[in-house]
């Protein structure tokens, strides 16, 4: 997963992944959309490919890139796990705060009586 993170850390590469989420594309297409030069885009695609994030197939003269779902799914699972750990902490805290509020109310109700 470390490699996935590294590969996606670069904004242009993340943008390439976003483009490919809509479906496979030839390199030329992405060059136009990203506003980068072809060698740059190819370099980014090579990094993404080495990280297992994209596959390439050759169709006539065109190189067509597509996302590979596995590393992204792993990453998504990790984000979800992190979120879930904190959410379960905070749900316990919700319950604790409810308990604390109820206790405080009781004390407030008691106080005037003890003063009299």
């Amino acid at each position, binding site marked *: 997963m470390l490699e996935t993170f590294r590969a*996606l850390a670069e904004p242009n590469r993340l943008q390439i992944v976003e483009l490919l989420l809509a479906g496979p594309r030839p390199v030329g297409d992405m060059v136009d959309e990203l506003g980068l030069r072809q060698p740059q885009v190819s370099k980014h695609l090579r990094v993404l490919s080495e990280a297992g994030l994209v596959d390439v197939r050759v169709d006539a003269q065109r190189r067509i890139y597509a996302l590979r779902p596995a590393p992204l799914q792993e990453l998504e699972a990790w984000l979800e796990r992190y979120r879930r750990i904190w959410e379960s902490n905070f749900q316990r805290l*919700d319950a604790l*705060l409810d308990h604390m509020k109820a206790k405080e109310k009781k004390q407030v109700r008691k106080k005037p009586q003890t003063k009299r």
Partner: protein
Amino acid sequence: MTNAGNLKLTTRGDREIVMTRTFDAPRNLVFDAFTKPELVRQWLLGPPGWSMPVCEIDLRVGGTYRYVWRKAGAPDMGMGGVYREVLVPERIVASEKFDQAWYPGEAIGTLVLLEQAGKTTVTQTVLYESQEARDGILKSGMEQGVAASYGRLAELLSRGLEKGASKS
């Protein structure tokens, strides 16, 4: 739980991770729940099966805190740090470092509590100080560059992952 799901995980700059959550309770109670050991150890537990046998808090500037989590069959997990700012009941800044730190150097945690109409919004920020720390976070899976586009990434993953990737 009524609040379930309102946890927000975002980023600021390239070294900060920001987590926001609203609680249906006044600020002084939420502050207590974050700073009194007998309360903290009731909820700050992580995944199922973990307990918090050590929770020491000396809440003053220069004071330290120490947390240890335990689960049968797993090594203890500990962390601690030193308080740098303490403003009851609204703001705490403290250093933080895990015992089995996957990164050298420290991180700085900031806790801010805002109350509005009886509800309290808690914002927890972790700032990774050094280059080494940032590189280390990479190993823990929370790398700075991804952090920069973290929220966006999570969103795009959940939105388009199956749709786009399965076409390959």
